């Protein structure tokens, strides 16, 4: 067909044709069996979109239908078909268990036991910029890929292995992303672009998924089924927890085991509970691929635990904030997962601030003012969120900084900026150490050829880890600049000099050396400094299960937050409207409050969507919500003004005392909103999101068409 440059199948893939991080089980192009509706079987390269669409329409695909595995219950049955025949534990991608004390047996001795079963939806990242990139095979034989990715260095390895290239033949760069949230943590278009570029040497190839393709093939937040039993003494002390978490990971690993493990670690939240049995499983199915999404398994766990906490508070007649405060594990104590907390810890202060907030103190009067057919409620949640990769996978960043020949400070950032603003934070950090303003600074975005390996932009570790490496590199460059300036100015010691914007000054004599002049007198190797940082790991061993440790359990440093939601529920329509939304967060010291607020507000809005309207529906393995008119995102009318407050518990292992803030705001909204709805109407749904249909069904309204509670 004219205009078609290449038609490719797995037969043209010369490498392993497998992608993945822990378990490499995802093909670039399918070579054995199609495992979900978004699997790619052929790749067409065409001159323009019209030709491409016509060519794709001419492909005839013959498939032998196999029995699919469409839900977790079926997947776990002994006679269920296997999604991967070669996986030693069948359809269980990974399972883990943490037991302490007498485990679930202690529930029998508790004065009160509350029980909760939940089904949580699949959530779509819905970044405004869908998966995209372009690539070219240069005449020198280098495959250059420019992609919207959170993980350029890891992609490079994955692409090279999957396509059968040497590592040094592949270069990946990651300019600013149009949103990521975890959905670009891992390969999306990269290998496909590489394959296309290899087939069309010397010509640029572009791939840009349509919204429908993004919804079809992109990863999602794991749908989850949870069962919790929580037991307490009559004085409100938590005593026992039995928690079972089941995550639908879809057909490929795609970090699903790591997501599950983080959920397991956080299954008992920030509380001291002596007797626990926490169990979690990530289950293979033929549904869409689940993977990383802001929160990474923790929003599911918090959804169950924090609702159980409210049920318990109600049962005991205790104030919900007070029940949480009484049971917090303080620094030096063990949380329910069994690991001792050794990081900075401001959650108690967060809870105190929330208890004093006008929304909490004034809730009685506000609720009483609900109009006809309206009910109002206020709910809270408290959460913690681990940062980084855990005890085994090295959480390392390598920063590089240069005094350019023109006398500017150039920061080589190894971590992608998907909208969190960490690129600006890099300049802020280096500018702080080197006393330079933005006008004297330049930035190089992640590029496997120019910047140094620094891990992923994920896991609330981007600035936490890279920032420390950058402080080290900047400090080294600062010392070198001052020492060399001292030599050139005939000054006895560098301590007599001050580094000022654009120049070095000898304070005593007033003599100055412009940085451009200093740069001209230095060789390139002197003008560049590098710094490495490896984040600290926990010495705790709550489990001997090495697989769980590899998958990240336990973490050493946590951010904390407590959130409040005030809702108004319409009895006639079932609509839940969020009227007030407050967070009080300890993410260590704030380097830039505006950026921290952005993270918190953005996470809370995604949490609001998770709680109230976002439901990526799949039936028979097929997507039922293929676009933004069927998958509903919160609009500017749905998100209320939010109040973001901070408790800045200085964390010595973080840059200038900072901890990560990217994810912790995502964990609390769903349970806070559900607790608020329960406060309003005395009832709880088992299934989420709380769509009007579900709310009407919960309320027992006869006109609740088809909604199941």
């Amino acid at each position, binding site marked *: 067909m004219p205009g078609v440059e290449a038609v490719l199948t797995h037969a043209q893939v010369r490498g392993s044709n497998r992608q993945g991080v822990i378990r490499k089980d995802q093909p670039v192009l399918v070579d054995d069996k199609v495992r979900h509706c978004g699997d790619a079987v052929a790749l067409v390269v065409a001159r323009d979109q019209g030709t491409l669409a016509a060519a794709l329409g001419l492909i005839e695909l013959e498939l032998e239908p196999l029995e699919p595995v469409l839900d977790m219950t079926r997947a776990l049955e002994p006679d269920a078909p296997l999604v991967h025949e070669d996986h030693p534990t069948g359809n269980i991608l990974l399972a883990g268990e943490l037991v302490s004390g007498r485990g679930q047996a202690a529930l029998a001795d508790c004065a009160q036991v509350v029980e909760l079963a939940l089904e949580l939806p699949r959530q779509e*990242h*819905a*970044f*405004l*910029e*869908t998966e995209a990139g372009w690539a070219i095979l240069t005449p020198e034989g280098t495959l250059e890929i420019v992609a919207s990715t959170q993980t350029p260095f890891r992609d490079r390895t994955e692409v090279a292995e999957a396509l059968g290239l040497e590592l040094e033949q592949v270069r990946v760069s990651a300019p*600013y*992303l*149009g*949103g*990521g*949230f975890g959905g670009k943590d891992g390969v999306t278009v990269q290998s496909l672009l590489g394959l296309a570029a290899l087939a069309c040497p010397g010509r640029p190839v572009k791939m840009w998924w*349509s*919204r429908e393709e993004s919804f079809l093939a992109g990863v999602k937040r794991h749908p989850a089924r949870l069962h919790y039993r929580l037991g307490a003494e009559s004085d409100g002390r938590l005593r026992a927890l039995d928690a079972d978490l089941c995550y639908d990971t879809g057909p490929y690993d795609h970090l699903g085991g790591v997501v599950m493990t983080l959920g397991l670690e956080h299954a008992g939240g920030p509380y001291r509970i002596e007797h626990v049995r926490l169990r979690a499983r990530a289950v293979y199915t033929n549904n869409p691929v689940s993977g990383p999404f802001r929160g990474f398994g923790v929003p599911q766990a918090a959804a169950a635990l924090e609702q159980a906490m409210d049920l318990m508070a109600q049962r005991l007649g205790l104030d919900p904030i007070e029940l949480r405060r009484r049971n917090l594990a303080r620094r030096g104590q063990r949380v329910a997962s069994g690991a001792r907390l050794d990081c900075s810890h401001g959650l108690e202060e967060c809870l105190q601030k929330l208890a004093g907030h006008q929304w909490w103190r004034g809730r009685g009067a506000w609720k009483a003012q609900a109009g006809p057919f309206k009910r109002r409620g206020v709910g809270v949640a408290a959460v913690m969120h681990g940062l980084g990769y855990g005890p085994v996978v090295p959480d390392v960043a390598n920063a590089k900084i240069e005094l350019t020949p023109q006398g500017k400070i150039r920061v080589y950032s190894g971590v992608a900026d*998907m*909208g*969190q*603003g960490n690129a600006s934070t890099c300049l802020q950090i280096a500018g702080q150490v080197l006393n330079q303003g933005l006008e004297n600074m330049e930035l190089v975005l992640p590029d496997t050829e120019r910047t140094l390996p620094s891990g992923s932009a994920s896991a609330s570790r981007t600035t936490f880890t890279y920032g420390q490496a950058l402080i080290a590199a900047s400090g080294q460059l600062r010392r070198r600049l001052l020492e060399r300036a001292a030599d050139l100015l005939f000054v006895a010691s560098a301590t007599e000099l001050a580094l000022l914007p654009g120049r070095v000054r000898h304070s005593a004599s007033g003599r100055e050396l412009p940085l451009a002049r200093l740069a001209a007198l230095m060789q390139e190797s002197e003008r560049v400094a590098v710094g490495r940082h490896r984040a600290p790991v926990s010495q705790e061993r709550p489990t001997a299960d090495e697989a769980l440790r590899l998958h990240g359990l336990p973490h050493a440093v946590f951010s904390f937050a407590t959130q409040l939601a005030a809702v108004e529920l319409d009895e006639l329509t079932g609509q839940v409207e969020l009227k007030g939304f407050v967070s009080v967060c300890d993410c260590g010291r704030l380097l830039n409050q*505006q*950026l921290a*607020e*952005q993270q918190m*507000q*953005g*996470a*809370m*809005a*995604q949490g609001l969507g998770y709680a109230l309207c976002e439901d990526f529906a799949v039936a028979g393995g097929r997507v039922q919500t293929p*676009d*933004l*008119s069927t998958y509903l*995102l*919160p*609009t*500017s*009318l749905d*998100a209320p*003004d*939010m109040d973001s407050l901070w408790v800045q518990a200085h964390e010595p292992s973080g840059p200038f005392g900072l901890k990560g803030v990217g994810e912790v705001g995502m964990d609390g909204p769903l349970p806070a909103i559900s607790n608020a709805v329960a406060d309003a109407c005395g009832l709880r749904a088992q299934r989420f999101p709380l769509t009007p249909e579900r709310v009407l069904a919960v309320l027992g309204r006869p006109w609740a068409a088809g909604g199941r509670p």
Partner: protein
Amino acid sequence: MKLRFTLNGRPVELETPSDRRVVDLLREDLGLTGVKEGCGQGECGACTILVDGVSRLSCLMLAAQLTGSSITTIEGLAARGRLHPVQEAFVQQGAVQCGFCTPGMVLAAVDLLGRDPQPRREEIRDGLSGNLCRCTGYQKIVDAVEQAAQPPQPEEEP
């Protein structure tokens, strides 16, 4: 067809299929990549442009509809190197995260403020409700539009 219109203050004349989507014409043919496509179905607002000062979705428009009109894209908003007050307010308030929704959001805000120079917060939310943002939770965007709204004119002495 031969198409004539004004683009960011300059006359444009070009040959294009009459059914070419305006978003493709602007992005692919004219290189104005500040026009973003987030859904192609008129749901997200990322492709918003101003047509004779009114915000329109360029993914739902065909080239022929541009005939004789005056188009403003985000590239044409800053005058003589100075940011438009709405752009300036977006920067100051931190209303930009990934930036993908920003061009459409800014143009929608310009349209809103053109119709109502002093909208209340709820009116700003209403005016921007056709533009999705996945990063910010909208709060700082609303703050920015509030800042960009003209301050009250001092009342004339009678």
